[in-house]
């Protein structure tokens, strides 16, 4: 009997795989990504590659952690599509619990509605009107007053200027040249090939009536006052640096970069007057 026992002890083999204290077999070089060899071995796939019978990823699987192999299996899937549930899909509560029902006491629930809205709308009309006039009055207070506007204009009696003469008047502190041009001067100004000039501008653009040339008497170079009926082109000549202007006030020669500026002006036909400004 004793010998039998000894024989039985001797056949107990040592384990071929080391086991961790948690009971998980220790397999450090296990490759979990390996796949079975691709041959048609009768479990339902023909193409080599991804097996069709592999469980999807969300269902879990084997992973290797620091404490050994861990196999997880999930039995429910996280939702992949969402349905919006709006709060008003619930049934509206028609009656509040605590508030008594007064409908029997009301004669006509709509009777005052139009009047109430009318009063609200009238209030809106008056407020909007008040706001609009507040803003517009404030903006008007920043506008130039009538005396300033009156000073900003100059009226010239054109009947006193004979043909072929220059008149220099003062407007906003600057000289203004007014030339009553003769017919030959008009033709000269219009026949010039203005497209080749430094500041190309036709005579028609510069004058409102061909016999009256109105322009600021400030040289566009450095601001001297040019001399009338002088220069190479029969117009104006600036003595400071020698700019020549023609009979339409266009820069023709010298350092002036631009034509003499034409101020805003209007003709009063009835009184033969010119209003500058």
């Amino acid at each position: 009997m004793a010998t039998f026992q000894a024989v039985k002890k001797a056949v107990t083999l040592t384990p071929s795989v080391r086991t961790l204290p948690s009971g998980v077999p220790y397999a450090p070089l296990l490759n979990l990504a390996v796949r079975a060899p691709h041959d048609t071995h009768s479990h339902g796939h023909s193409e080599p590659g991804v097996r069709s019978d592999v469980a999807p990823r969300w269902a879990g699987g084997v992973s290797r952690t620091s404490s050994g192999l861990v196999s997880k299996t999930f039995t429910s899937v996280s939702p992949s599509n969402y349905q919006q549930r709006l709060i008003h899909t619930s049934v509206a509560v028609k009656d509040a619990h605590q508030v008594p029902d007064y409908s029997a006491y009301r004669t006509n629930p709509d009777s005052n509605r139009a009047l109430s809205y009318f009063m609200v709308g009238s209030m809106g009309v008056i407020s909007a009107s008040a706001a609009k006039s507040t803003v517009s009055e404030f903006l008007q207070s920043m506008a130039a007053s009538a005396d300033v506007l009156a000073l900003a204009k100059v009226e010239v009696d054109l009947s006193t200027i004979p043909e072929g003469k220059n008149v220099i008047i003062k407007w906003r502190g600057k000289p203004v040249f007014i030339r009553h041009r003769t017919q030959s001067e008009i033709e000269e100004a219009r026949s010039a090939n203005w497209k080749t000039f430094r500041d190309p501008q036709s005579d028609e653009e510069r004058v409102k009536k061909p016999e009256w040339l109105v322009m600021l008497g400030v040289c566009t170079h450095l601001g001297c006052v040019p001399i009338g009926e002088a220069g190479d082109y029969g117009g104006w000549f600036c003595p400071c640096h020698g700019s020549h202007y023609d009979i339409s006030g266009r820069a023709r020669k010298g350092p002036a970069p631009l034509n003499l500026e034409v101020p805003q002006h209007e003709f009063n036909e009835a009184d033969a007057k010119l209003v500058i400004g």
Partner: protein
Amino acid sequence: MSPSATLYNVFFKRNSVFVGTVFAGAFVFGIGFDLGVTKFYDSWNKGKQWKDIRSRYVTED
């Protein structure tokens, strides 16, 4: 339909129409108010303003 219900349905039911009516009404009201006040001012000060007595002092030449 009563006139108040018509008024409600035409102007007050939609907020866009309501607000539009308010703004249009403000525009018209502003013009009317200005005209009315100016008229009242002129009639109250009749004979005192320059435009009333101008003919006494300015002789057209």
